[in-house]
């Protein structure tokens, strides 16, 4: 526990000295935040509320990118070898990556939510407990996915390729960038097999409808199971040495991370619950009133729908 705490502190300290960290963890998420809420939602509070969920989910999902790259870099440079010869375990290192990333990402999400209220006058952030749970589990689960990627790739080049292969479907087919309801039916149905879809939908429904943790239990539970599975696998596949290559059998084991959402995807494809929720949210977005003058965000009219009731 002492080693884990010391490593977490070290990771946070080093992150603050890294220009790449500022760009990817602070500049990028806020650029995306202002672009989507300011331009796509045109600053209309109800429309901003619609996009806030995907924007927050997008930021949360980005965790996997940084964690995978850092771990592979540490392995390639021989930094992990130095820790290996000290009384440090793989779990200490992996858990400290996850927690440091959580500590660094959560304030950015909180700031986004704060700006959404103060600058874009989003009517409500929904149920704070559900939001906190989903964001926390999201950061941990996508961070763990990053650790799995780092464990199954041998070089930084391989890591970047695999990250791209995962990142593109995760952001484009889950509703994180463009609403799921806009997509062709086949894409929507495919999206139901992606963990990102559950994070996006969960956060969006929490903000729009003040969903309780119980009403979002599917998202919370599935992402939690996935977080445990990916973390367990990353610890199993962890390699200290750059020359220790991944056996093909281990790569197959990684396919296990897809099982929870393959099963859930089948169930959700039959129930259509998520697709109906996404469609309803989009209809509400389309019907949101335009501002009196472009570019100036306004508060919702007092006679509008009470927040969290729909």
């Amino acid at each position, binding site marked *: 526990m002492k080693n884990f705490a010391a490593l977490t502190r070290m990771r946070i300290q*080093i992150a603050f000295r890294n220009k790449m960290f500022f760009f990817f963890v602070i500049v990028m998420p806020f650029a995306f935040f202002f672009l989507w809420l300011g331009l796509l939602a045109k600053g209309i509070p109800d429309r901003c509320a619609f996009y806030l969920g995907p924007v927050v989910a997008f930021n949360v999902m980005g965790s996997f990118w940084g964690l995978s790259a850092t771990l592979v870099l540490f392995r390639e440079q*021989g930094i992990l070898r130095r820790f290996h*010869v000290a*009384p440090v375990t793989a779990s200490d290192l992996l858990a400290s990556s996850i927690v440091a990333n959580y500590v660094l990402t959560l304030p950015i999400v909180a700031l986004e939510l704060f700006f959404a209220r103060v600058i874009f006058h989003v009517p409500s952030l929904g149920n704070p407990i559900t939001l906190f749970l989903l964001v926390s589990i999201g950061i941990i689960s996508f961070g763990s996915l990053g650790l799995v990627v780092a464990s199954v790739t041998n070089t930084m080049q391989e890591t970047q390729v695999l990250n791209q292969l995962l990142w593109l479907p995760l952001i484009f087919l889950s509703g994180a960038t463009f609403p799921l309801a806009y997509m062709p039916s086949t894409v929507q149905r495919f999206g139901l097999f992606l963990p990102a879809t559950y994070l996006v939908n969960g956060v969006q429904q929490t903000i729009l409808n003040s969903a309780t943790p119980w009403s979002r239990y599917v998202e919370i539970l599935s992402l939690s199971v996935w977080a445990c599975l990916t973390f367990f696998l990353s610890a199993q596949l962890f390699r200290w040495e750059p020359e220790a290559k991944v056996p093909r059998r281990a790569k197959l084991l990684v396919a296990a991370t897809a099982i929870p959402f393959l099963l859930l995807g089948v169930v959700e494809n039959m129930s259509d619950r998520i697709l109906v929720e996404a469609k309803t949210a989009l209809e509400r977005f389309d019907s949101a009133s335009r501002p009196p003058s472009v570019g100036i965000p306004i508060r919702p009219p007092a006679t509008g729908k009470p927040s969290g009731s729909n």
Partner: protein
Amino acid sequence: MANPILQVENLVKRYGEVEAVRGVSFSVEEGEVFGLLGPNGAGKTTTVEILEGLRTLDSGQVSVCGLDPQRDSDALKQEIGAALQATALPDKMRVIEAIRLFASFYKRQRDPQELLKRFGLDDKKNSFYGQLSGGQKQRLALTMALVNDPRVCFLDEPTAGLDPQVRREIYEVIEELRRDKKTVLLTTHYIEEAERLCDRVAIIDHGKVIALGTPRELKARSGGTTRIEVRLSKPASDGVLKTLEGVVDSREVDGAYVLHSQRPPQTIVSLVKQLEAQGNELVSLEIATPSLEDVFIEYTGRRLRD
């Protein structure tokens, strides 16, 4: 040996088809500086990494401080310190932070400030790792190997790739460890390093120990001869150099002829006469007392750096 703190018996390690270590055996006494001397790829690093618990062995037995590096890995790591080959720290980590972080992993700790002062890193304590020179990084690696006041220190090629000046600085650090009666297992492919720093040396080649003893003992095996290295304008006839006066051994190494002579002045005179008779010329001539390199050449017919 009275009290070996480190024991290796018939150690074998394979990487696929390649047998990197082929039945290596040696033991190290507490307080001894022991060197594994050999060319790159001889199996030195693999041996050391097995002793550190970083790699598994295929057969044989090893024990460090009475512990099995694989079975008692956690306990072992508390007892050893290591400066590994091909290792690094994050560029944006400060020197003092690195020492404090690594010290925090151990039950027994030395004062980081005292270590920094001792190894001449005090003025660099707030520098980032990425800003350090190669020599400073290596000094930091040695300092970090001592944060837990280890019973055994593993120094894997501690001066590889460093310029001679920096190398001598590192020698002073290791000599200090020797004065402190630390047990050190050092791997190197530098003759000077092994001769200057080690109490005993195992010469290792192709995964086997080919000679073991104190540097003096090993050199004495050259028969108290003087080493004469000559380069000629034309190749010498087969075996003719062996017949020169006082010569007990002659080998061709890298286009030069290495002669071991018991009577160097007579050897040189008869060499000059022989060359004149053959119409050959002397390009260069070096005379030296035998080094561990000669021992290596004697056993392998190759130079250490090959």
